[in-house]
């Protein structure tokens, strides 16, 4: 088995800059703020989306290592936030074997 030499895929921001912009606008919206308070009882800070958008534009302009680092750190923090708690169950490697098995037609499933 050989690896193709010099064929590394170029890094790009995890999301497009337009996505960062729309996430920021969505975050700031009254609807979103209302529902965040309804769900979590805290006020929302949307600054990070704006910072990510600016870093994304910086990367597009200058390809700066600093912008890349900022974006990677920010997104890794988001992923870590989602994985804060240990899962209750084990994930599957493949779907259940019986998902597509035909139903037992001796028992009617529809009345």
């Amino acid at each position: 088995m050989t690896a193709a030499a010099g064929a590394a895929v170029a890094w790009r921001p995890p999301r497009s800059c337009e996505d960062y912009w729309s996430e920021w606008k969505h975050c700031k919206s009254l609807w979103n703020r209302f529902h965040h308070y309804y769900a979590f009882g805290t006020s929302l800070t949307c600054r990070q989306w704006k910072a990510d958008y600016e870093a994304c534009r910086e990367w597009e302009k200058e390809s700066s290592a600093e912008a890349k680092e900022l974006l990677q750190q920010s997104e890794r923090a988001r992923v870590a936030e989602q994985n804060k708690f240990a899962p209750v169950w084990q994930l599957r490697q493949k779907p259940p074997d019986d998902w597509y098995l035909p139903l037992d037609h001796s028992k009617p499933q529809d009345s």
Partner: protein
Amino acid sequence: MEQSGEQQRSDEDYGYGLFPKRKEAKYKKGSVGESLFTFHNKCQLMLHFALETSPYAKFLLGVMKQSGCTAYQDRHFSCEDCDGTVSGGFDAATSQIVLCQNNVHRQSHMNRVVTHELIHAFDHCRAHVDWFNNLKHLACSEIRAANLSGDCSFGNELSRFNFGFKRHHQECVRDRALRSVLAVRKVTPEEAKKVVDEVFDSCFNDLAPFGRIPHSKNDVKFASRDFQNRDRYYGNL
């Protein structure tokens, strides 16, 4: 599974008693059957409409298809009569979502029930959920379904005359998960509450596949966009 009215049974039946048609060997016909047929027809139509037009349902179906669990209306969904006030259920033994044709009469309700049960189906597809023997697993999926289906939306809670605001969503999720567990398992309220409390933090914060609590169709659009983008996202972290 959705909440039900109170019923006392002496043995554990895993909630199958709420769905009597699942175990019947004979199909009863007659005048009662005729009016049931109308409900059945209506249920099938509303189900089809939900699967075709509800952004929540379409997103879940799309994610499940990518995971190898394509859900077909005629195989994985069943409109049946149910006991009490149950709206639907997920039968892991047959990989089927049950919709209660005698209790679901509005399209908006059907959309929400389908979403709720699809979350159970999604959990079944992606994880080794021990539905019948592990109460924590059952509670976890109920917490997630209540959290992510719109069951506990501000509007829905208002319509139930539950006028909470700050952090009320979580109270609703906890309460509905508790009721769902009690509806299908022979456990005491104290036992059910203990299990829900034990797994709440982990399961309330497990937002797969949405990545966020979807409070609106717009949130689902964002979730869908993130899902389409997942290869780029994880490849550039």
